[in-house]
């Protein structure tokens, strides 16, 4: 079956101005997202992972034009989103929904659950008013809540239940793509598993496409088909989940995966521990943005920005943005301590 492109992001940049000085002029920019491109196909789950400040949430928001992108194009189902008027964009938002991280902050506390869902359907003219109540009940049942809870207020629900309300709201307008921005990060593991399972069932039932934004690599491995790894506003590696988790090529991806504590006390506690902090996105390092923390960094890395490229040992569109993928792979380039450091 030919894969159908649903969302295509091309050369996306999101710079936030920093005002300062006497006249409140723009003195500099935070380069939150700096020239990224990727495609999402219909029915798949693509995740963006990275640490705080890497630009993963900004990417999600820029796609929906919750913040106007500085540069680049976002094509959704044949429509070029960045050139649409506000009115046209609002219509299209029916197909593009988002679930936020904090279920406490993203639902109006003065609306009942039924009001929340009704409002979404009214704005998008999904159903005539008469049929909406029935649909609301249906939606609640879909996400594992009960009919009698429809007229309750958000404060009467637990965190996991509130996240279910957020999911029901996103589903109420029959979207094609849902952006899940750290949608399960605030939940405890036992509840997180419930919500992840729910998201997977819904994907099957309603043929949804997910853009899943998360910092939790366990969650990402579980839910994704393909994974994008970001560092300081750039994509450093992209590939299907087996490639990213079992055959990572970029030194950052390797370090990131290796830094996660494994819930198995008998496993040897070896980690690659990166030194230092993530540099500021206001004045990111020249060349490869990771070179300040990369144990393999060479002169070239300080000057040339690496492009995403694929190599012999990489399959299925797996690409990494590193000048020395092959040299690291065949051992001609070695770094002291990398892969060796015992925790």
């Amino acid at each position: 079956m030919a894969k159908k492109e649903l969302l295509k992001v091309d050369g996306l940049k999101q710079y936030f101005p920093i005002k300062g000085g006497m006249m409140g002029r723009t003195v500099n920019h935070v380069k939150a997202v700096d020239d990224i491109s990727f495609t999402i196909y219909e029915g798949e789950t693509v995740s963006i992972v990275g640490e705080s400040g890497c630009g993963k949430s900004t990417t999600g928001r820029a796609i929906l034009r919750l913040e106007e992108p500085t540069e680049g194009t976002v094509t959704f189902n044949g429509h070029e989103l960045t050139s649409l008027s506000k009115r046209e964009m609002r219509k299209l938002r029916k197909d593009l929904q988002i679930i936020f991280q904090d279920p406490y902050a993203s639902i109006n506390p003065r609306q009942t659950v039924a009001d929340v869902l009704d409002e979404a359907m009214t704005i998008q003219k999904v159903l005539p008013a008469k049929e909406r109540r029935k649909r609301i009940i249906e939606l609640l049942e879909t996400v594992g809540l009960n009919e009698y809870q429809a007229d309750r207020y958000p404060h009467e629900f637990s965190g996991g239940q509130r996240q279910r309300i957020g999911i029901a709201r996103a589903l109420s307008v029959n979207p094609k793509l849902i952006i899940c921005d750290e949608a399960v990060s605030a939940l405890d593991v036992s509840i997180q598993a419930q919500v992840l399972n729910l998201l997977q069932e819904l994907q099957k039932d309603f043929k949804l496409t997910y853009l899943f934004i998360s910092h939790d690599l366990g969650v990402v491995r579980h839910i994704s088909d393909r994974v994008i790894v970001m560092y300081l506003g750039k994509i450093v590696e992209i590939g299907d989940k087996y490639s990213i988790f079992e055959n990572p090529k970029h030194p950052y991806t390797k370090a990131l995966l290796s830094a996660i504590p494994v819930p198995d006390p008998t496993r040897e506690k070896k980690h690659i521990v990166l030194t230092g902090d993530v540099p500021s996105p206001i004045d990111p390092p020249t060349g490869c943005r990771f070179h300040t923390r990369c144990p393999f960094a060479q002169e070239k890395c300080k000057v040339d920005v690496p492009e995403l490229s694929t190599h012999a040992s990489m399959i299925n569109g797996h690409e990494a943005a590193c000048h020395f993928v092959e040299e690291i792979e065949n051992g001609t380039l070695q770094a002291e301590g990398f892969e060796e450091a015992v925790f």
Partner: protein
Amino acid sequence: MNSVLLEVEDLRTTFYTDDAEVKAVDGVSFVLRKGKTLGIVGESGSGKSITALSILKLLANNGKIVGGKVQFKGEDLLTYSDKKMRDIRGNAISMIFQEPMTSLNPVFTVGQQISESIMKHQNLSKKEALVKSVELLKLVGIPSPDKRVKQYPYELSGGMRQRVMIAMALACNPEILIADEPTTALDVTIQAQILRLIRDLQKRLGMSVIMITHDLGVVAETCDSVAVMYAGQVVEYSDVVTLFQQPKHPYTIGLMNSLPRHDVELEKLESIQGNVPNPKEMPLGCRFAPRCPAATDLCRREMPELMKDTEGNDIRCWIYSEKWEGEAEVIVYGEKRIAESRRTETILSD
């Protein structure tokens, strides 16, 4: 076997609100040995942080320790006066918190804050204390410590702030370091740095550590023994290898089965149904019974005590008692998981 440094016995802490009594901690027992790390693991609201605060008697005004013992080197801290307790806190037992920004004072420099406890507990002058502060910052791996010591918390990154917190906690060479979710607010690469730092310092200084966390990965990598908490109680307490290889309590098993893993491929997560009970209306019997797939009438009727099993580990579950009559086979841990992880390994080796 190393000597016992701290022994908590059946600790109970209750908070009194306008309309209810909340039994936040209701039956916590564990032992901390010299030089070892004890993990307290549980989800939000399980009482793990309140347990730590109770040990140091740092409870809010409406909180009261209503029962139990906290034996530190043979003496019950619960009988100590406020003044005596002040000599313990930050001295013999110190604590680091989850949010390094809110636990540091924004209007004092890093040096002033570290010096405070040094001057109090070690009778050093301001100047000497500042010199010691620089040494401590160096110890926790902060680059150019003589410059950093004059900076304010806002000038430091999250990882740096947590290092400062650790420096502060170590200022008086504590025998016990209580780390309450020390890496939860940090990114994984920074978390790895901090966990390694705590581990290194522990080895060098011979401290005992109580590691409070919700992250089973952190537990597996840092702890020697683990107390699993649910709804204010310890439900399982054993050494770390036993806990991960043969978890016994249905809650522990459920917790491990619902954990998505980055290192092995899982087909489906087994979630625990339902929600944590409201602490104002705790179930009559076992607190996990409403969510437990094996629960029987006995479980719903009577609360199980923390019992010793045949291997000397503690478990709070009727299944492992003589009273049990139900089907013990209901809960199977991990066979599927283990099979799956083997499969991943074979795919890799091909």
